[in-house]
């Protein structure tokens, strides 16, 4: 991250960075060098907008991200997947328990630590059926930390037309450092 020195220095650093971005963009394409801009929304995949760095560098440098309490562990993963990846969850306590284990990319992970759920409801004003997500921060036996969620609430959303329960889909959405 750029340090903020005096105004000239800042401009100078900016110039260097811009030049770097331009060089890389020339190689691999402007759209593939991105900066991230925070979006004011609860929906995780929309909370960050990737925008071409060549045009949005200034905005990115001035962007304000949601404050984080230093003493608290992060509520959001460092790496967020573009698309949540499905995981297999054999068993989780109803209505809001985390799984004891899950399988992702064919590897089985045993959950030893859990925090959650953080319940994020979707934006009801958008089209399409959307389910409420219960997110869990889980740590497996190897110390890897995942951000997983169950898509839909039992008892109210995970039902078919006749009111019979349907099984929930689980996903991993990101990884903590």
């Amino acid at each position, binding site marked *: 991250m750029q340090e903020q020195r005096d105004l000239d220095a800042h401009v100078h650093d900016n110039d260097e960075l811009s030049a770097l971005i331009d060089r890389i963009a020339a190689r691999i394409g402007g759209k593939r060098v991105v900066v991230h801009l925070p*979006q*004011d*929304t*609860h929906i995780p995949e929309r909370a960050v907008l990737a925008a071409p760095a060549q045009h949005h560098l200034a905005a990115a440098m001035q962007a304000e991200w*949601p404050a984080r*309490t230093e003493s*608290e562990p992060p*509520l959001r993963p460092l790496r967020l997947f573009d698309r949540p990846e499905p995981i297999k969850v054999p068993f989780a306590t109803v209505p*809001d328990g985390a799984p004891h284990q899950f399988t992702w990319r064919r590897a089985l992970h045993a959950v030893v630590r859990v*925090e*959650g*759920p*953080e*319940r*994020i*409801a979707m934006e*009801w*004003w958008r*089209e399409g059926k959307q389910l*409420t997500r*219960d*997110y869990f*921060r889980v740590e497996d036996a190897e110390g890897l930390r995942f951000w997983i969620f169950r898509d839909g609430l039992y008892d*109210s959303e995970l039902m078919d037309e006749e009111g019979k329960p349907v099984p929930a889909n689980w996903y991993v959405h990101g990884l903590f450092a």
Partner: protein
Amino acid sequence: MNTPAYAEIGITTNFSFLRGGSDPRAYVHQASILGIPAIGIADHNTLAGIVRAYKELDNAEVLHKPKLLIGARIVFIDGTPDILVYSRDRAAYGRLCQLLTKGKRGDDITRIEKGECHLGFDDLLEYAEGQLLALTLPHRFEPAKALEVLAKLKASRAEGVWLAASLLYRGDDRRRLAQLDDLATKADVPLLATNEVLYHHPARRPLQDVLTCIREKTTIEAIGRKLEANAERFLKTPREMARLFRDFPDAIAETMRFARKIDFSLDQLKYQYPDEPVPPGKTAQGHLEDLTWAGVQKYFGGNIDDKLRATLHKELALIAELKYAHYFLTVHDIVHYARSQNILCQGRGSAANSAVCYVLGITSVDPTKVDLLFERFISKERLEPPDIDVDFEHSRREEVMQYVYRRYGRHRAAIIATVIHYRPRSAIRDVGKALGLTEDVTAALADTVWGSWGKGLNDMQVKQAGLDPNNPMISLAVELATELIEFPRHLSQHVGGYVLTQDRLDTYVPIGNAAMDDRTFIEWDKDDVDALNMMKVDVLALGMLTCIRKCFDLIDKHKGERWVLASVPQDDPKVYDMLCRGESLGVFQVESRAQMNMLPRLKPRTFYDLVIEVAIVRPGPIQGDMVHPYLRRRNGQEQVSYPSPSPEHGDKDELYKVLHKTMGVPLFQEQAMRIAIEAAKFTPEEANGLRRSMATFRNVGTIGKYEDKLIGNMVARGYDPDFARSCFDQIKGFGSYGFPESHAASFAQLVYISSWLKHYHPDAFCCGLLNSQPMGFYAPAQIVGDARKNGVEVRDIDVSYSFAQNTLENTDNKYCAVRLGFRQIDGFHWLDEDEERLKQIQSSFRGAPKGASPESIEQHLPGGMDSGLAPSGAPPLRNCAMGNDNVERDWADRIVAARNRRPFTSLEDFARDTGLPKRALILLADADAFRSLGLDRREALWQVRRLPDDVPLPLFEAATAREQPDEHAKPLPVMPRPEQVVADYQTIRLSLKGHPMEFLREMFTRERVVACKDVSHENERRRVRCAGVVLVRQRPGSASGVVFMTLEDETGIANVVVWPKIMERYRKEVMGARLILVEGYIQSSPEKVTHLIAQRMIDRSHDLIGLASDALSRKHPVSAGAALIEHLNDDRRDHADSPAQRIRHPRDVRILPPSRDFH
């Protein structure tokens, strides 16, 4: 598992405006359904919603009544986190009210705006005794600060201190709860579980989100994380709360311990009547009786028959038994004050059923003339305090209101509130905006609703707006708007209802500032006050009383006859003749189109006929299909019959007794009640419930449950089922508009008196009406037109003769001439004598020596009680030193003062002698007011422009002097009459020189268009084309879709009927045209009520432009007339419950807009 009991103490209702997503009543029901034993409603800095919740406990559908805890969430301005405050007992509740009052009224130094509440932490500490306090903390909090607050709370005199904890699925719930627990232990306070409830059911989340958008003034796309992330803040079951808090079961148990400590319920608000009106040494009842018999002396010379004597005794006995004497005395006291100031007033409503009220001078319905139904007013069964509304002259009502404040003091008297709810229009507008719909879309949706009070929109209405009901955003908007309807938006002061207490009012309910200076009002509305049996006095305003008083004063001054309300000769056949002809423009209550049409059909000949006329032409009776049967029976077209029950069940005449005065058709509210009691054997409570459900339009839904009972009982007693059903339908049709007979009688008095004035003194009547504007149905143009038609000469505004008010000038003819006053000029500054009098009264009280009693001060005021008041008028305005700052407001008086010194001979004279600003001169010139100086409008304007500006800079004085052109310059071209007329309409909204249509007549005649007067009975069934200026567009509440229009030309007016199909096709023309051409056929009734049924309509507004064309550039695009559609006879606008809507009244319509590019 045994579910532990749980009390939810952190509920926010929609009385935390734009924050809570559910009505207090919804929570009561939901608590019952979910088995929650106690709920606490704690709205943001207010107790406005608690009475609603309290009343709802009585609803039979609430099977498991929760204990209702009364509290408030104090939101501070000094950064202290929110604290829930619940009162243990009555005394603590009084303190809570005082705390909130302090926040809303502040001290005398800083004024707190209406709706705001400024409280600091120390304020809470001051009123902490007896309160249960729960500190709530935001998601992220500072433990140190929280500890500090808790410590201070513990050190106060509070009953107890808790730390509220909620688990809202924020991801770090457990961690945070552990922190709170830690904090609680350190502070030595228990944890208290709550779900920080915002709505009663998770389905309300979208609406609550929309409320947030409205509150934050942004759209749903932009609001971001100010919204809640999930839908968890609903009223949860005890089982679920216990599960959430399974690691801290004590927090759950604590809620019940909390609830049990609270002893206070609204039952404990024991109301006390104020003592003032009772002279020392007497009891209230004793004084009342003395006044009663004194009144008998005054009104009847002590000579009354046995029946009346018996009635008075009966009433007094009941009043004594129910201990209501104070109430009558309080109202009498106010009325007495008004009379002493020569303010006309009259009681209305059910109080007119009381003979005691008549002899006290509160009402003017002579008990010997009308059958009184005292039970309608007070009954043992009802146990409600009597409801006496008094109408005062609208222009002087403020004086009366200030008197009430002075007499009782601001800590014991305050106005009640009106809750301004979301109506369909405002709901769809705000929701649409929040959802990001464009303005024209929301406007289109809002416009289709026509200002109606119905519930929500249907697909047809959406389509009518030109929108697709299947568009998801549109249907979402409509759905949410429907949910939002009936939500409170804010509180406003009631039109004139006061609450008065003996002890401090601010220990019953919080009091806050109104928008108007010097006004305070309580947080509860009329229904709330009634529910708690508090005394309410309605000080209402009636324009017609002002008008009548002004007429009486004018007649006294110019004709030397002094009349009062009670001395006008009754039963004059000539007056009734006039009404039978339908000549009722300006007459109280019967001047609308519908009434005018009804008069020739009903043909009133007696006072009681007027009572019926007043009651009958309203949406209720029309919707209930009572009007036509009544008319048919009255005209002998239908036989009058009275169905009976089977002989074994009852007296065959039981309905005859109820309905014979109205030919067997129920027309009055009391009759509906009587039918329920006599024919359907309702108990008094049930009849009361029926009456209530009829009395408020909001309760229209509840009347259904009485349906089965009424019909069922009647059929069981042998009535014909069809008849029983039609009875119920008629009663349902009353809705909120059925008139009580006594109310109609009070109004009928005024109908008669205003008719009498119109017939015998059309000059004074015209003048009085003009001087009492805004009031009534018609614009000045029609009032003047009507007067001229009746032989009254009306004279133009003129600087040499006019005053601020319209005045009379003696003539040799039968009637005086009406001289139009300066007040008719739009934009002219004149002092309202009634406002000035009020200010004088107020300032003399502010300067009064401390300890002076209100009475002693008033005696020294002009017109004070013993000052030998001059009969002709209100206390004369003293010329208290009106400083220079009044020049701006006092143009009219300057003109009068100047011409009293020396008559005006030229415009320069005038300008110099009056010292008026140029603005004023231009207005006068443009209003053609300089004719007596030999200048018509064009010449006057020209000269005015040559005058130097108001304060010429010395440097330029010489220059301007030189620039004044030669006096002998070429004369100006004469302004043609059409332009004069147009200019008249633009400045004073009427013209004595002609009508715009007359200049277009030749053109229209060439097009074979007839005049309005030709739309007459004689031309029945002819097809014609008629054109005229659009005066009024109306849509009656009952007939769906049909629109009535009134056109005017130089020959008179024509009534046009536009059926829905035609309306659909010509909507734009109907809504927008100022001048319209209608093709259709004439339809006339046997009583000669004539309409033009429209088949084609053409907008001819552009023809109006052609009339005005001159160098001074009056030409401007004639914009569409305001889309104003009035409900026929819609007195909901004036209903005590209904907030004033921003509908433009027909009388305010501009036929021609003012010229814009003027200076």
